[in-house]
C-alpha cells in the first residue's frame, strides 16, 4: 500500500479549538474501514481518550454483539504486535482478567491501516475504580502482582519485536544522573529566575541520590537477576495505576496493555508506591509495607528483588519527573510555581529516607533479617 496515508500525531491546537476528543477525519474514516473487517454491526462510536501527540486513540463502540473497544495503537506495528500477543496470551493461556481481543472475520488479532495496528476488544461494563485509600492501594498491588505472575512464559508472535526493559536499568539510572547536570547548567545560566536558586540548592543532593542508586544497582544482584531472562521474569505493565487497574466482574481487571514489556516486575510496584506517597504528601511506612505485602502475596518478592525495589525507590523519581522539563523554556518554567513545587518535593523527600531505612530490613516480609 504505497500510497496509503500514514497516521501521524495530530494538531493539538486544533484539538483545543474544537474539543479535547478531536480526531482528524481521515482517521475516523479509517476506523470505519477497520470495523468492516469484523463480524459486527457498529451502531455508535464514542471517543474515550486520545493520544493526539502520539497518534493513538480509543473508541467505545456499540455493536450488535455488545459494547466493545476499538483501539488505534500509536506504536510501530511490530511493537504493538508484541503487546497484542501478550494480551491474547494472558486471556487464552492464563485466563487472566484482561479484556479479550475480538478476532477479525479472517481470524486475525488486528487490522493494519495507515501504518498502525488497530484492534477490537471486549468492553468490560462493570469496571469501577477502587477507592483511593489503603485498601484500594492493596487491591491494586495484589492485582498487578497476579498479572506479573501470570505473564511469565510469554513468547511474542512471529514478526513481533522483543520489547524488553530488563537489561536497561543501568542505562535508565545513568540517564537520570546525566540530566541532573543539565538541570544544574540551566539553573546556573538562568540565575535570575525565581526557581533557580532553589533548584541549585537541592540539585547536588538529588544528584548524589541518583549516583548512589547507580552504585547500589551496580553492587546489587541486578546482573544476576536479569540472567534469568525475559520470559522467566514476564511482563511489566509500565503504565499501571488507579485507572488501568479496575474492579469488576470476578475481581480486579488490568487494562490498556499496549505498553507492556519484559522487565523486573517491581518496576510497576515502585511507580505505584512513589505515586501514592506523592499523593499522601509524605512517605508512610505502614502503607508501603501493606502494599508490598499485598503484592508479595500474589507474586513473591525474594530478598534480591526486594533489594532492587529499595534501590529503585531511592532514586529521586519525584524530583526528576517534575523538574526535567526545565530545560525547555527556562525563562517560563522556572517560575514561583516551580520553586514551590521543588520545595514540596524536598519536604516529601525528607520523609522518605527514614522510611527507606526502616524498610531496608525485610524480615517483616519474611525475608532474611539484615
Amino acid at each position, binding site marked *: 500500500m504505497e500510497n496509503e496515508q500514514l497516521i501521524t500525531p495530530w494538531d493539538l491546537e486544533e484539538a483545543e479549538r474544537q474539543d479535547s476528543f478531536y480526531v482528524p477525519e481521515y482517521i475516523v474514516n479509517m476506523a470505519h474501514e477497520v470495523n468492516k473487517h469484523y463480524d459486527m454491526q457498529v451502531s455508535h462510536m464514542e471517543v474515550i481518550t486520545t493520544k493526539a501527540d502520539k497518534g493513538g486513540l480509543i473508541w467505545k463502540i456499540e455493536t450488535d454483539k455488545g459494547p466493545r473497544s476499538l483501539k488505534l495503537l500509536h506504536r510501530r506495528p511490530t511493537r504493538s504486535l508484541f503487546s497484542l500477543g501478550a494480551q491474547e496470551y494472558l486471556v487464552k493461556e492464563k485466563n487472566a482478567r484482561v479484556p479479550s481481543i475480538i478476532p477479525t472475520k479472517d481470524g486475525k488479532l488486528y487490522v493494519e491501516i495507515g501504518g498502525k495496528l488497530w484492534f477490537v476488544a471486549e468492553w468490560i461494563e462493570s469496571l469501577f475504580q477502587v477507592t483511593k485509600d489503603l485498601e484500594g492501594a492493596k487491591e491494586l498491588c495484589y492485582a498487578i502482582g497476579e498479572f506479573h505472575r501470570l505473564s511469565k512464559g510469554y513468547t511474542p508472535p512471529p514478526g513481533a519485536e522483543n520489547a524488553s526493559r530488563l537489561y536497561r536499568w543501568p542505562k535508565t539510572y545513568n540517564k537520570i544522573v546525566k540530566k541532573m547536570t*543539565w538541570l544544574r547548567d540551566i539553573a546556573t545560566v538562568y540565575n535570575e529566575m525565581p526557581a533557580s536558586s532553589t533548584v541549585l540548592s537541592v540539585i547536588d543532593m538529588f544528584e548524589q541520590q541518583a549516583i548512589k542508586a547507580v552504585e547500589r544497582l551496580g553492587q546489587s544482584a541486578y546482573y544476576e537477576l536479569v540472567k534469568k531472562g525475559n520470559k522467566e521474569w514476564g511482563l511489566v505493565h509500565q503504565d499501571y495505576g488507579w485507572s488501568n487497574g479496575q474492579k469488576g466482574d470476578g475481581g480486579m481487571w488490568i487494562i490498556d496493555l499496549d505498553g507492556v514489556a519484559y522487565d523486573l516486575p517491581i518496576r510497576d510496584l515502585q511507580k505505584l508506591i512513589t505515586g501514592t506517597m506523592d499523593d499522601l504528601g509524605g512517605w508512610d511506612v505502614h502503607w508501603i509495607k501493606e502494599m508490598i505485602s499485598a503484592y508479595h502475596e500474589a507474586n513473591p518478592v525474594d530478598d534480591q528483588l526486594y533489594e532492587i525495589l529499595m534501590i529503585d525507590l531511592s532514586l529521586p523519581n519525584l524530583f526528576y519527573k517534575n523538574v526535567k*522539563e526545565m530545560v525547555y523554556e527556562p525563562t517560563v518554567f522556572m517560575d514561583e510555581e516551580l520553586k514551590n513545587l521543588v520545595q514540596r518535593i524536598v519536604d516529601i523527600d525528607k520523609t522518605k529516607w527514614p522510611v527507606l531505612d526502616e524498610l531496608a530490613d525485610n524480615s517483616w516480609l519474611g525475608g532474611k533479617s539484615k
Partner: protein
Amino acid sequence: MKVLIICTEKLPVPPVRGGAIQTYIAGIAPFLGQKHEITIIGRNDPSLPDQETKEGIQYVRVPGGLLETYRQGIVDYLNSNSSFDLIHIFNRPRLVTSVRECAPSARIFLSMHNDMFKPQKINPDEGQIAIQEVEKIITISDYIGQAITEWFPEAAPKLKTIYSGVDLDRFVPVYSTKAEKIRKKIRKEYNLEGKKVILFAGRLSANKGAHVLVRAMNNLAKNHSHVALVLMGSKWFSDNRVTDYVSYVRSLAERSPVPVITTGFVSPDKIQDWFAAADIFVCPSQWQEPLARVHYEAMASGLPIVTTNRGGNPEVVERNKNGFIVEKPGDPKEFAEHLSTLLNNAQLCKEMGQYGRKLAEEKYHWDRVVHDILEVWNEIEQKVKNNIPINVEATEEQVTVEEVEEQDVLVTEIEIAAESDTEIEEIMEETEELEEVEKVEEDEEEVEEVEKVEEDEEEVEEIDEAEEKRNRGIFVCYYNPPAPPWINTRAG
C-alpha cells in the same frame, strides 16, 4: 568471482532513505562490479523493485525491519542461489550462522561499522561461531577491531581496518579559490564577517557533545571577542516540539557570550559549504564513537581539528599536526584551551589545515577504499583458485593485516543522516524523548503516562521506528525538512 553483498535489515540500498552503511555499499559497488559479478541483497522498499539489474549489479530485495524476518528472506534466497564464491555481510554478525548453513563452501566476509559483537548485541556462542566462519573482518577503525577482540580475542588474526574517505573535489580547502566565494557568501549571510568561526557538524544529541562546546564558549569569550560558534545539523523537529537535549543546548546557547548559530538541517550536497566557511572544526564526541566521518571532511576542507579521545576518532588525527585531541571530553575548559591556542595563532591554524588536506589527499580518498576492499577480495580469489580450504592461513593473513594497517579509507556522503546502526538507535532513543515534552499533569494517571513515555525513550533497538520517524518528515536527510534554525543574535 561471484559475490553476494548482504546489507543490514534496516535501510534499503541504494540509500533512498539514507544511512551510511547503505551509502558506503552503493558507493563501492559500481567499482567492485567492474572486476566481479555482484549481487546485493537488502531490505525491500516501496520505492524500489524487489529485483533489478542496474549497472551490471543485481539487486534482490526482501522484507526487512526485524532481523529475524530479514534473515528468513536471505535464507530463502540462498537456498535457491547457492553458487557464490564470496559472501560479504555488512555489520550483522548474527547473519553468519544462517548464511553458512545455506552456503557451506562460500567464503564469508564481515564489514563492521559498529560494536555489534558486544553481549547486548549477540550471544557469546553465536559470536564465536560467526568469527570462526568468516574469512576476514573489515572494520572502519582500529577501535571497532579492538572492541571485537575485547569479547572475542580469537578474532584478532582476521581483523583489518579500512578507514573511510571523502570526496576531495567536493570538500575543498578553505584557503582555495574555490572555497573563497562560498566562504564570503555564507559569512555575509550569517553576519559572520570578521569572526573566527568554530564549526560543529552532526546531529544535536548528547553523545555528539554540542553542549560541551557551547559551554566552552563561556571560557573562550574571556580572551577572544571575535568568535562565533556554528552548530551545523539538526535534531529533526516534530510537531514543533524539540527533544529535551536540543532544548538544553538551545537554552545554554541563548545565554552564550558569543553568537551561536544553528543552521538547522543542511542538505547533503550543501554541507561542504559550511566547512568552507569555517576556521576551526570541533568534534566534541562524548561517546565511544566508531569513527566519525566528519573528520575526513574537515581534513579535506583544510581545517584544524579539535576532537576527543573517544572511540576511533583520534585514529585519524595526528596530534599537533592536523589537530588536537581532548583527553577529558566532558570538560569545556580543555576545549577552550585548545581553541584558544588556535585562535591565537593563525599560522598554526593554516599549517594544521594544510597538513590535514595533505593527509586526506594521500590517505583518505574514495579510490583507496575500493582498492583496499578489492585487495582483500583478491586474496580470497587466489585461495578459491588454488582450492585452499576455507579459513586456513589465518596467521599469515594477520601479517598482511598489520602491514596494511596504516592506511585505509571509507565512505561518507550523507550528512546529518545516521552514520551507522548505533547512530540510528541513538536517534530513535532521543526521538522518543520528544515525547517527554508533554507537560506533567497533576492528575495521577497523566503522571504515570509521562513516566511511561520516559521509559519508552529507552527503546532503542528498532529500525522501524527510525523509518516511522522519517516518514513523518523528521529524520534522515532525504525527507527531512529544514529544521527551524535558531540564531543567538543577542551576543552578536
